[in-house]
């Protein structure tokens, strides 16, 4: 018998993923396409860190929620290991998916119950995800995951959230995410609440976990400097669309899309002073509804074509895509 080896499906793939929110009242029932035809693919061979960068309101958190199956998309497909997760309904299947994909949120003080010890939360997570059958099993797993994030289990488990500093508590929430030994961790602004002096320790921890546990990461941030530092690939989001995608080095040192350029020029970097002036617009909602390219109001290279027709994704080879007529 000949075994036919099929090509392994990507770890995560989205096809024309779209989420529309209705805003009533103020904008007379306008529709906001928070996530607009997003196509992403993470190959399943070597662990990578993919950063999704963009301004607030660009849809990056909505995208994270879709990928975590917290909300349902309006249309489009999300495939995880070849299976469409928007279609799964069975409890055991959902649980299996949740074991494989775990979130880390921005503010650890909001994600823990302030009245309970973190130990209680970790045990509940382990049992609810059905990673462990009994408390004894759970204990072993929890100890392992706490040690892997650099915390001492004996000290940590009996403390309550307010007894931790922000950096430590964020480590606990990473440990919580590691309990089910996930393939993919989706971290939504995990360091923006933390102080500069401890921020890098969390970022370095992600790099270590990627190497030691072969975990894939989707790192959602507005901070380009840390995105450059940790990620292998970067997707730049603007008003719901991914306007540029490519390897972190390519995108952030040689931006092609004019929006990426503006974003890079605005980052308060400590090695280069700003030159020129930034013009501000008050057009956020118009941009969502633009018939043409959503960026034409602010783009320095706008042509008539940009105002009327939507650009399509151009594949430039070498894993690089850009959503602009100039290429």
């Amino acid at each position, binding site marked *: 018998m000949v075994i036919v080896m099929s090509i392994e499906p990507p770890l995560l793939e989205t096809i024309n993923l779209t989420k529309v929110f209705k805003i009533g009242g103020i904008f007379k029932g306008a529709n906001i396409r928070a996530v607009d035809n997003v196509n992403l693919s993470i190959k399943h061979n070597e662990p990578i860190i993919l950063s999704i960068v963009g301004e607030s309101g660009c849809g990056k958190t909505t995208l994270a929620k879709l990928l975590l199956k917290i909300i349902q998309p309006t249309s489009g497909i999300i495939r995880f290991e070849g299976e469409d997760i928007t279609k799964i309904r069975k409890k055991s299947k959902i649980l299996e998916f949740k074991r494989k994909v775990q979130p880390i949120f921005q503010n650890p003080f909001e994600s823990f119950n302030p009245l309970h010890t973190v130990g209680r939360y970790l045990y509940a997570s382990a049992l609810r995800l059905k990673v462990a059958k009994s408390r004894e099993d759970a204990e072993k797993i929890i100890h392992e995951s706490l040690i892997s994030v650099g915390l001492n289990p004996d000290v940590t488990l009996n403390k309550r959230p307010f007894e931790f500093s922000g950096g430590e508590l964020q480590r606990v929430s990473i440990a919580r995410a590691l309990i089910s030994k996930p393939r993919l961790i989706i971290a939504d602004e995990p360091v923006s609440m933390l102080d500069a*002096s401890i921020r890098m320790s969390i970022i370095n921890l992600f790099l270590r976990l990627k190497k030691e546990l072969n975990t894939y990461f989707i790192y959602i941030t507005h901070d380009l400097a840390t995105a450059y530092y940790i990620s292998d690939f970067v997707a730049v989001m603007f008003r719901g669309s991914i306007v540029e995608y490519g390897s972190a080095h390519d995108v952030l040192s040689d931006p092609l899309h004019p929006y990426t350029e503006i974003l890079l020029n605005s980052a308060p970097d400590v*090695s280069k002073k700003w030159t020129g002036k930034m013009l501000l617009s008050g057009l956020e909602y118009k941009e969502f509804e633009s018939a043409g390219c959503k960026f034409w109001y602010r783009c320095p290279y706008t042509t008539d074509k940009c105002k009327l027709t939507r650009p399509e994704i151009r594949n430039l080879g070498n894993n690089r895509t850009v959503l602009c007529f100039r290429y």
Partner: protein
Amino acid sequence: MSENPVIEVENIRAYYETRYGDVKAVDNVSFSVKLNEIFGICGESGCGKSTLIKVLYGIIEFPLKLVSGRISINIDGKSFLLKDNKDVNTIRKLWWKEISYIPQASMNLLNPTVKIKDQFMEIFRKMNKKITRSEAEKIMQKSFDVLGLPKEVLSSYPHQLSGGMRQRVVIAMATIHNPKIVYADEPTTALDVVVQRGILEMIVELQKKLNNTFVIVTHDMGIHYQISDRIMVMYAGKVCEIGKTYEIFQKPIHPYTKLLIESLPRLGDKSERKSIKGEPPNLLSPPKGCRFHVRCPYAAQKCAKEEPSLLEILHGRYVACFNPLS
């Protein structure tokens, strides 16, 4: 300390009273701010930078108390002294006209049920200015032009504006009477990088136009690098280092400043960045001696016992450390 200081702060201590004892949020801090500069205060959360600004602006309300020290504010040859909790009224008389304050997350402080122009009118009324509505609107219009805000904003409600526009409205409010001193506490933290850059550039422009003093508090070292003329680095309620921004970034002298600047990731540089080991101390019972000695790789025995005082090491460069890096 320096030529024509607008704000002179001498050894102030401001503590929060709690059940467990005093939280020493600002402990023996001295510095001075000159006319016509952007003075930056940086440090991690909980280092006392916001408390310091509150004290400077005269918002000293329970549980905060001024324990000792004095602040003098020198405007147009007149001096206003703040030595005691009771003196806050001398500072409060200067509000809006001479001193103004842009608090943290201030874009959310606008009254949601009142039109922008009516909120401005309220400030005019508070100041007992007798001007007609049309005159007032002209003044508003002028300050809106500087900040690049369209006319329609005046007659809209806050919820109709984006975060960046609201933030600009608040900046317009704070600067409408051409104050000599503007305190801004994290003025752009909740905003996007693109909007943030626009607003910071407007602040720089405004400062040049008004020839006044801006005191900017933010934890983001990148912002200080971009706009502050001088910066003061704080750690756990103490001052570590004061100096010209460019010089501090070029050659930090205090170990904390050095490690903090080294830990910042930079675009185009993938070399390994390490964060400072340990965590900032609890200000209820800060460590003895230098408050940074627990985390400092250069700490000597003396650092754990004695507290270093802030000394002028180079011209205009103040450092509080026993083993300054040279």
